[in-house]
Structure formats: structure tokens, C-alpha cells
């Protein structure tokens, strides 16, 4: 089977710094890497490839430097990688991003039919979780989000377990389909030596908006439906009462007393 994983380059730590004066994100110096949730998606794609003797392609949309996550994908077991890069994409929200990715998918699909698209649950920078369901909407393919397990795979479909607040839904999705996965889905491997070496030599296919036949009126900061109008650092409470005492035992007794006094217990 042919599995396509969607990945994104994001700041390595979600502990990014905020300029205390301007309240803006300090991006410079922040190391970038593959969105951690995408590692689970790609690993599951590679596991499926190993089980079924198929192949894994990876697509990303991003600036030139995002090529690194595609090379990283090769190290993790991907066979072919595609980068959507164009100034026209800059500033896209999830509506426009999913549109561009769907157009990229269509182009790959025309070359080599895709059975399954796997996305991470969300990214660690914008945390929306929209991309998986939205790609499926553009393509009009069935989908499921919050997938925690692929129960079975056959030539025509997969059966998946989806995490809900109350338990687990079991669904059967015929190919082609889209799933977004939570981290229980897989256990990302450490990149092999061979993979690391192959990553440096891999060929990255690069496509512009024109290459994928995307309508530029649907792309970029000017055309996407949503806009960030303000960003600021969250307020933090800094008025903790330090519970005093000579030792842990005394402090514990004091704490219980305080909680009782204030009717918290």
C-alpha cells in the first residue's frame, strides 16, 4: 500500500520565549524540528509499509528550511518526499494550508495512487488539529481523527480505533482515506545509521503553487478566511502562599489546617 504522511516543521520546544515588552514570539534562535505529533504519524506509516510491503511518501508545506523535516522523514523510513514551497503559501491558515496540501496530494495521487493519508493529531505550535479532517474534506475522502490504533488492514480498507472522551469507537474506512493519529498509535523508532546517511543524499521534490495547480485566490495571508489580530503573553498568577513549617510534617499539618479553614476540604 502507498501511505502518505503529512508533516510540519515547528519550533523544537513549545517552550518558546515571548518578548516581555512587545509580547511577540521570539523565533530567532529557536531550533526547528519535526512536529512531535507527526513523528507518531510517520512511524505508523513506516510500520504499515513494513507489514504490507508498501511505500511511504511524505509531504510538507513550508519555507525552504522545512526541507530538513523531509530529510528527517527519509531517516525515519520514508521513501519519497515532497515540499510545497511558494511565497503564495505564506501566512496561510488551516483552511488554506489544507487546500494546498490537498492539491499536492492530488498531484502525488496522479503519479502513484495513495491509499491512506496519516496526519499527527495536531502541531505543537498552532495546536489546531484541523489539517487531517480538512484535507479529507477537500479531497472528499472519508476520515477519522484521534485514531489510537489501526486494528486491521486489508487491500481495500483499514479498521481503526478512535479515542473519545467516553471510550473507543471502532470504524472501518475504505481506501483512500485520511486519519489523524494520537501518540498511542505508535512508538517512533530512533533513526537508523543507514537512514541518517540516506537522509543527506535524498532527493526532495519541490513544488510551487503553480506546480500543483492551486488557485492562488485561496492561498496565503491575504486570501485565507481567518486572521490573527492580536497576540499576547498569558497572565500568570504569582501570589502563592508559602506554607511554612520546620519540616515536611509541620508543613503538611499546616496545609491541611489552611485547606480546612478555607473549606476546600
Amino acid at each position, binding site marked *: 500500500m502507498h501511505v502518505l504522511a503529512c508533516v510540519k516543521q515547528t519550533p523544537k520546544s513549545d517552550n518558546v520565549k515571548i518578548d516581555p515588552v512587545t509580547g511577540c514570539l521570539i523565533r530567532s534562535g529557536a531550533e526547528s524540528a519535526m512536529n512531535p505529533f507527526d513523528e507518531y504519524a510517520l512511524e505508523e506509516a513506516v510500520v504499515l509499509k513494513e507489514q504490507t510491503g508498501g511505500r511511504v511518501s511524505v509531504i510538507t508545506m513550508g519555507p525552504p528550511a522545512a526541507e530538513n523535516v523531509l530529510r528527517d522523514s527519509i531517516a525515519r523510513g520514508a521513501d519519497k518526499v515532497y515540499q510545497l514551497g511558494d511565497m503564495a503559501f505564506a501566512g496561510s491558515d488551516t483552511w488554506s494550508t489544507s487546500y494546498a496540501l490537498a492539491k499536492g496530494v492530488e498531484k502525488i495521487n496522479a503519479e502513484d495512487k495513495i491509499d491512506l493519508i496519516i496526519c499527527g493529531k495536531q502541531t505543537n505550535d498552532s495546536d489546531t488539529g484541523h489539517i487531517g479532517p480538512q484535507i479529507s474534506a477537500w479531497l472528499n475522502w472519508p476520515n477519522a481523527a484521534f485514531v489510537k490504533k489501526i486494528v486491521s488492514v486489508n487491500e481495500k480498507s483499514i479498521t481503526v480505533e478512535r479515542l473519545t472522551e467516553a471510550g473507543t469507537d471502532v470504524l472501518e474506512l475504505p481506501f483512500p482515506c485520511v486519519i489523524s493519529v494520537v501518540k498511542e498509535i505508535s*512508538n517512533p*523508532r*530512533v*533513526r*537508523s*545509521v*543507514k*537512514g*541518517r*546517511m540516506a537522509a543527506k543524499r535524498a532527493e526532495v521534490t519541490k513544488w510551487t503553487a503553480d506546480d500543483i495547480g492551486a488557485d492562488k485566490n485561496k492561498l496565503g495571508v491575504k486570501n485565507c478566511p481567518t486572521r490573527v489580530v492580536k497576540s499576547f503573553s498569558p497572565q500568570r498568577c504569582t501570589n502563592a502562599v508559602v506554607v511554612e513549617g520546620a519540616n515536611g510534617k509541620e508543613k503538611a499539618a499546616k496545609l491541611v489546617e489552611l485547606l480546612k479553614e478555607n473549606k476546600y476540604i
Partner: protein
Amino acid sequence: MDYAINEMEQETLNATREFAQKKLKPVRAEMDVKEAFSHEMLEEFRKSGMFGLWVPEKYGGLGGGITCLAMAFEEFSRVCAGLALTPGTTALGAIPMFLAATAEQRERWCYDLASGKKLWAFALTEPEAGSDASALKTTAIKDGDYYVVNGTKHFISTGKEADFYTVAVNTNPARGARGISLLVIEKGTPGFTFGKKEEKMGIRTNPTYELIFENVRVPKENLLGSEGRGLLYVQETLDYSRPGVAAQAVGIAQGALDETVPYLRTRKQFGQPIITFQALAHKVAELAAKTEAGRAMVYNLTHRMDEEFLPAVKAALENGTTVHDELKKLKGVRWTKYSAMAKLFCANTAMEVADECVTLCGGIAYMRDFPLEKYMRDAKITQIYEGTVHIQKNEIIAALIKEYAAKGE
């Protein structure tokens, strides 16, 4: 200091370091206490290609040679010497096969070796044949197309988990040591059973078993090389594997230092970090210097070895010959003395470093919550297996006597 001289070696260091931190470190304490083999970790090693580092690319391996194998073993052991044995003992069990195997035998075994689908173990030691391998009592008597094997091996690492056992047997007991041969015996062959599981001081996650052979019929296609040359292959194997144990010892020493130095920097007594006390600081400096000396010894040796090993492997694959034969054609140096020196020095260093680190850190290091006591327990095995430190000294002195005698001095 890193001794990588090419991209492949550097990436081996990068991959194995990341693997040790991400995969081994979180479970090492638990696996030590459970004293159980980790099948999850086996899968992790497989998925990351850690079994094939030294196996030729033709079979799906990396083709990295003895240096990459040693580097991996050092980096894994730096975090957990026990879990490191999962790929480590497979290499030890498979090296004699790889050296002596015919082209046909390589085809049969090397693909699953490189992928880690099949694990290997080396079975030499017997209850009455430890350091004196020539005293082994396990027999393999030819019966048509089979050898009928009887006997007992003990203290076999990765016992019961391994799929193939490279077993030293005597095919001609009348000839004593010259009757010793190597047979590959597959788990599940009728009459091949496992006896006692040992409870050990260290490397506890790796299972150590007794192997029992009762009229086990092994096809003659599983004989390695020719009959009676088993001890030669064993010696050749140990020449290549002892630098691996030395690398493991360097890893243990380095790992103990990795735990100790940060602790000494943060632990305060008498109002100051205890690393500022010179008596302790100087001790740490000495331990670090010895560890680095051991590392230099190991990789200088493996790089020299690879200068012969890799071309020999290449030639064997091209000519359809055995690696052993190709090595013989190329051989300028016998590595026995240097392998023994590396293992002797590094094993003693590991023990000294681990022991001293426990003392330096004090009470906390004696507790199981802190990893140092495990390093001390694990270090001990490096002084014992694949030839005790005393056997290494025998090897060294035997070589020296021979050298000086040859010069007529």
C-alpha cells in the same frame, strides 16, 4: 573524545547515543530489577537497524565493521550494559559463523542476522571447561548426514532467547583439543533444551542459561569450516570480540562518570559543592584520564582491524570464499595480544571507575534509586567474560615470549 573517522562511524555514534538516551535509559532500572529480557527493546533495536551495523550491505546490514560494532556497544553500555547485550551477544554468536561460513551458509543466515529477526548466542563454556576451552566435553558424533550432539553448556548469555547457537563441540574426542569443531544449532531442534536460568550480580536483564543437548541431530550443513579447527575460529572470534567487551567496559566507565560528575557538582557539604574538594576532584580526573586511555586503545585497535577485516569481507563476498580464508591471505598481524591488552585494561578501568564513583558519591550511590550501584555490578562481568583478566594476561605474556624468542633475545 570521538574516534569516528568517517561519516558512517560518526552517524553510528549519533544513532546509538540517541538510542541509549531515548530507549534504554527510561527502562534500565526496571529491567534490572525484573531480571527479565525485554522483547520491546529487542523490537526497538531491530527497528533502528542495530543488529546489522557490522554485517555487509549485501545482507541488509550497514557494512560498518568492527569499529561500528564497538562504538555501538560502548554507547549502549554507557547507559545500560545489560540491555546492550541484546545486539552484543548476537554479534558474538554470529562472528564465528561469519568468519567461517561458506557463501551458501552466509546466504542462509546473514539476512536474518542483519535484520535482527534471528538472534545468535555463543556457547563455549561448560561446567568443567571455562578458561580451559580445550577441556570441553560436549561431543558431536557423525551419523550419516548428521552430527549427534550430547553434552551441557552453561552460563550462556541470551540463552533461550537466541534462535541460533554457535556451539563448540568435540567431533573427534580422541584428538582432544584438535577435535574441537563449531556447529550451529537451532533452537527447537529435538533434544536441545534449556536448563537452569542463572541469577546474576549484574547485566541482569540478559538471560543466562544452561543448554542441554541430548542426542540432538544437527545437519552436517551446520558445521562451520572444517572439523577440528574449532579452537582456531574461537580464537579468531575472540580477537575481534574482545575489543567489543573493552568498548563495553569503556562505556560503563564513561556512564559511571556521567552520573557522578553532575552529582558532585550539585551535592553540597560544609557549605560548598563537594567537587571543589581537591581530593575528590583529583580522583575524578584520574578516572576520566584512564577511561579516555581505554577508549583510545579500543578504537586505535578496531580501526587497524577494519583495515584488514573490511577488505577481507569484500573479497569473500566477491570470490564466494570464507572471510577466514580471505583474512589468512591478507593477514599481517595477529590481534590476540592487542585484543587481550585492550580488554584487560578497559575491564579493570571500568571496575575501578565504577567502584570509585560509588565511593565518591557516598550513601546515595549505594541506593538502588541511583544508577551507580548498577554500574558497579555490571562492570564486574567485563573482567570475567570472554576470558578473565588473568587469561588476558596469559595471552599477552605468551605473545611477548614468542616475540622476544623470535628475535633471539
